[in-house]
């Protein structure tokens, strides 16, 4: 499949033509908007609102407001019958503006807009009054809460009366996706999207694919070799003609918007590129060419690591136009500061990943050794760098401690301890833990297996982590002690020859991708999803999806599920060939515009507003709705108030202020 053509100018021109049409519409619709007939609907929210706010009284007050033709209440406005009340009023009472006083707009704005749409009314003629989260849930005096709810409703009515029909901005969508990150999540998302018919560019900063999984031996819970999982994913990705792979490549910057992003990439000299091809047969790569040993990652880079850089090999910059971006940038492992549990001071203190590599290299049938010394006892400490406690643990480089649980380490550690006991039954294993979080399918079985394998468990309290000291002249080089909850808080000390720290997952620095796009970040440092329950793979920046551990710690199964989910969302955005954006952009009334161009000067976004020549010789401002971000900076400086923000007009805000103050100062009849 050929690279999709992308001409920013053509697109902007197209969008401009649409803009002209959109600008004409408000005028056309002005006649329609002349007589606002507002329906007000006040929700009980099953008691959530009505327990505090006198919902009937609020409706009664609303009925008296200018422009209101009906004011009703309902137990659940969002329910099917609740929605039907609105639909019926639109059909039968000629309601042409709708106010719903209910929970926060984040929950049901689209629900109610949907009702308007299905009833043949423009969905932008809807306004919310938030009387749950911002009234009944936060004020407990009935009289005060009811009065405030009434005031908010009157403000919403004032705004609703001034709303005009709006049409979404439609942007032609490039049928292409950039997947940033070539670990399991990135590979999974890339192959899903390619199979669905989109062009995919897979970008990996290391020279090899595979991410952290490439460093693992076998994966819990079924002990499937990591190599098998990676081979499946990599072979599929490398064989798919629609996928272009760039290794040794980072994102320098990102421009554009959903449907029309451009990623500027920088590929280092040793990075390799596998280009998309018209069909699978013309693909040069075969799995044998690129296959590597376990632990070495998977990709072209490793095969060439020892070769000198060829004369014609150079770093290069490339640009990729895409419609959506899947961030699959993975995680970092916590690096304990020097001294934490002896890390960095005692050579026998290593991380779980180091241990996995060490164990795989120990020959079977003989006594395992570390740095030439026999290993007779191994200790594992859970929750290193996770579940940290203020005052007990040192803040990280970002000044914060890691309160979060890293999810996978308990099962991973159990799995490792079991593998150790299986391979070397004479080696004692100790696990120092807080809670055993073997939560997933097949995980608890490893806890069972560990118990049967005589792994010795010691339980510590998070505020009093185990202490590690060197074994001076002792039998063992490292001594670990803790107040063991399983022996009623007694101090227990064990000697080990190897101490393994189950280090947690921390947010990786997503680099220029995050800074270019201003991707929001959660309190725990990971990339923030739009809604933690309902929308786990979507991001506030439209067109950017989150796959895998960049959003939160996950195991391989969860990473792949989230990657496929992210791919499904990206595909959904682009499948129809057009991305529809909210019409909340600035618009100019040419009749009021006197050509001062204060807006152009104030506007922070390149090319969002420009002065256009009119046939009568005047110059007036014109907004490009595909580029305008809708901040409204222009609105504040126009001397003739000729420019305003669609859906959020200054005029409406002024009316809301008046309504709020009028309501507030009224002697309460409620």
């Amino acid at each position: 499949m050929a690279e999709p053509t992308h001409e920013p100018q053509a697109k902007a021109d197209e969008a401009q033509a649409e803009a002209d049409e959109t600008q004409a519409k408000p005028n056309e619709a002005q006649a329609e908007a002349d007589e606002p007939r507002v329906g007000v609907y006040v929700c009980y929210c099953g008691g959530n609102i009505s327990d505090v706010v006198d919902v009937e009284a609020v409706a009664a007050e609303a009925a008296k407001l200018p422009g209101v033709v009906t004011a009703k209440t309902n137990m659940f406005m969002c329910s099917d019958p609740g929605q039907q009340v609105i639909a019926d009023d639109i059909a039968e009472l000629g309601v042409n503006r709708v106010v719903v006083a209910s929970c926060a707009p984040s929950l049901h704005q689209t629900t109610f807009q949907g009702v308007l749409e299905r009833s043949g009314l423009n969905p932008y003629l809807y306004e919310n009054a938030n009387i749950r989260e911002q009234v009944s849930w936060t004020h407990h005096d009935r009289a005060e809460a009811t009065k405030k709810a009434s005031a908010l409703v009157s403000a919403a009515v004032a705004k609703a009366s001034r709303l005009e029909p709006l049409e979404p901005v439609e942007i032609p969508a490039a049928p292409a996706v950039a997947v940033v990150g070539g670990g399991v999540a990135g590979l999974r998302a890339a192959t899903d999207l390619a199979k669905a018919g989109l062009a995919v560019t897979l970008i990996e900063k290391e020279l090899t694919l595979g991410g952290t999984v490439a460093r693992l031996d076998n994966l819990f819970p079924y002990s499937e070799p990591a190599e098998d999982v990676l081979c499946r994913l990599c072979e599929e990705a490398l064989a798919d003609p629609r996928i272009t792979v760039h290794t040794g490549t980072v994102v320098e910057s990102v421009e554009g918007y959903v449907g029309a992003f451009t990623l500027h990439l920088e590929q280092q000299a040793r990075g390799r590129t596998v280009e998309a091809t018209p069909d699978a047969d013309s693909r040069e790569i075969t799995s044998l060419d690129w296959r590597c040993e376990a632990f070495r990652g998977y990709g072209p880079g490793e095969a060439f690591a020892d070769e000198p850089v060829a004369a014609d090999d150079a770093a290069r910059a490339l640009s990729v136009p895409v419609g959506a971006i899947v961030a699959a940038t993975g995680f970092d492992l916590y690096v304990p500061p020097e001294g934490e549990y002896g890390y960095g001071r005692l050579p026998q203190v290593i991380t779980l990943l180091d241990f996995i590599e060490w164990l795989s290299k120990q020959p079977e049938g003989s006594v395992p050794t570390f740095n030439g010394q026999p290993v007779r006892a191994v200790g594992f400490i859970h929750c290193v760098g996770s579940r940290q406690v203020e005052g007990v643990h040192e803040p990280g480089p970002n000044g914060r401690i890691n309160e979060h649980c890293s999810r996978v380490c308990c099962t991973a550690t159990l799995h490792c301890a079991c593998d150790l006991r299986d391979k070397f039954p004479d080696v004692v294993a100790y696990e120092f833990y807080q809670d055993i979080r073997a939560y997933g399918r097949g995980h608890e079985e490893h806890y069972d297996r560990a118990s049967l394998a005589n792994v010795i468990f010691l339980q510590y309290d998070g505020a009093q982590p185990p202490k590690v000291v060197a074994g001076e002249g002792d039998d063992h080089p490292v001594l670990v002690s803790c107040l063991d909850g399983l022996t009623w808080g007694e101090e227990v000390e064990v000697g080990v020859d190897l101490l393994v720290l189950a280090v947690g997952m921390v947010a990786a620095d997503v680099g220029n991708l995050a800074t270019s796009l201003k991707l929001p970040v959660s309190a725990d440092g990971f990339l923030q999803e739009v809604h933690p329950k309902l929308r786990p793979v979507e991001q506030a920046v439209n067109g950017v999806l989150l796959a895998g551990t960049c959003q939160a710690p996950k195991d391989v199964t969860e990473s792949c599920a989230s990657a496929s989910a992210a791919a499904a969302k990206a595909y959904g955005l682009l499948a129809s060939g057009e991305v529809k954006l909210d019409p909340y952009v600035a618009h100019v009334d040419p009749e009021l515009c006197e050509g001062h161009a204060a807006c152009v000067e104030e506007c922070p976004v390149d090319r969002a507003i420009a002065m256009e020549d009119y046939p009568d010789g005047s110059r007036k401002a014109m907004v490009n709705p595909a580029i305008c971000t809708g901040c409204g900076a222009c609105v504040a400086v126009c001397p003739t108030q000729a420019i305003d923000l669609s859906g959020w007009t200054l005029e409406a805000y002024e009316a809301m202020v008046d309504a709020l103050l009028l309501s507030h100062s009224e002697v309460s009849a409620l």
Partner: protein
Amino acid sequence: MNAVHYDTLIIGGGIAGLQAALDLADQGREVLIVERQPSIGGAMIGLSKVFPTLDCSSCITTPKMAAAAHHHRITIFSYSEVEDLTPHEGGYTGTVRRKARFVDEAACIGCRQCEYACPCEVPDEFEGGLGARRAAYVPFGNAIPQVALIDMASCTLCGRCAQVCPKDCIVYDQQDELVPVDVAHVIVATGWQLTSAASKAEYGGAAIANVLSPLTMERLLAPHGPYGHVVRPADGKEPASIAWVQCAGSRDKSLGVPYCSRVCCMYAIKQAMLTSGSLPFADLTIYYMDIRAFGKGYEEFYRSAKAMGIEFVKAKVGRLEEAADRSVDVHIENINDRGQSEVRNHDMVVLSLGMAAVPDTRELLPLAIGDDGFIDVPHPKDAPCRTSLPHVCVAGTASAPMDIVDAIAEASAAAMEVCREGDRG
């Protein structure tokens, strides 16, 4: 009747089924959801609030339910079951049994006049047996479809509902309808069921009135629950102390449930936090083995619960006994206190029962099933939703115990598996 054709059949109208349906329908595919209960929404619609955000569960489920119900590419057969599925090269043919509601679904406006007129009362399953419903009833306030049905087993055929129905849509002799369908893809999203309380004799075998299932507790905590308040079922007393017994249906070989059900630690903490809001003076205790607060924001949620004064006691509960005043004696081995055996008394106890598989699909499709009863997939690490059968995917708790956020991610992943297959039905 000719087979009705859809691109994808989704078995189950809970949150996973609804999410998969929406993703597929938004991509232009025709979807059929077959839901066994008279309303879609699954388990989620009956919960009070969800962890860790404490969003009202209804509030976040109803938009998905409404969006699915209103999407022009989604058809919902509620109160229906898939009878059989036969594979062919391009997918499956099958039969859907649309069970008789004894009400004309198309005509019913959900006015509830039949319900108000019906003289027969039975315990309300939706409310966990607390509160009553009529034999003729609309399942619950925000049910979709908002349509009545008659529970014939409890109906006395008195005829009152037919007399009062304004749209004349009571049909006493309505028969089940068998609808042939032909689909290109199937997504199994059949959900889960609670592990059995009756099987654990040590915990009273479901016979102690003030020992509740967690779903019943959800109804007590829900804003529009049976009593609007947390009271104990035996006598309506406002409990001064409530305990949660963790792993009451999981990590228990004696019950045949050796696995962890994943969500119980979190839902118990959530219930305790909600209870402390509605009963600020009650003593709240959670008896646990390990607190599995593993997800994003979960550990932080756990810490808030501790800060709110909820007591966490590391102790395996050995036995529950009903005391004379109908309170519950909880026999524990307290790990926090030298492993001492203790008996603690609480007004009410909630058993943190686990998630068990729903056995139905085994008869429909030759899917691989694990020892734990959940559906197995050939590549659980890199393709968790792709089953061993072509054209068949699995989503949500049908594949393993999981919480809402993971079920939603899997649902979209299953939708993506359908898209990967390329061919449109």
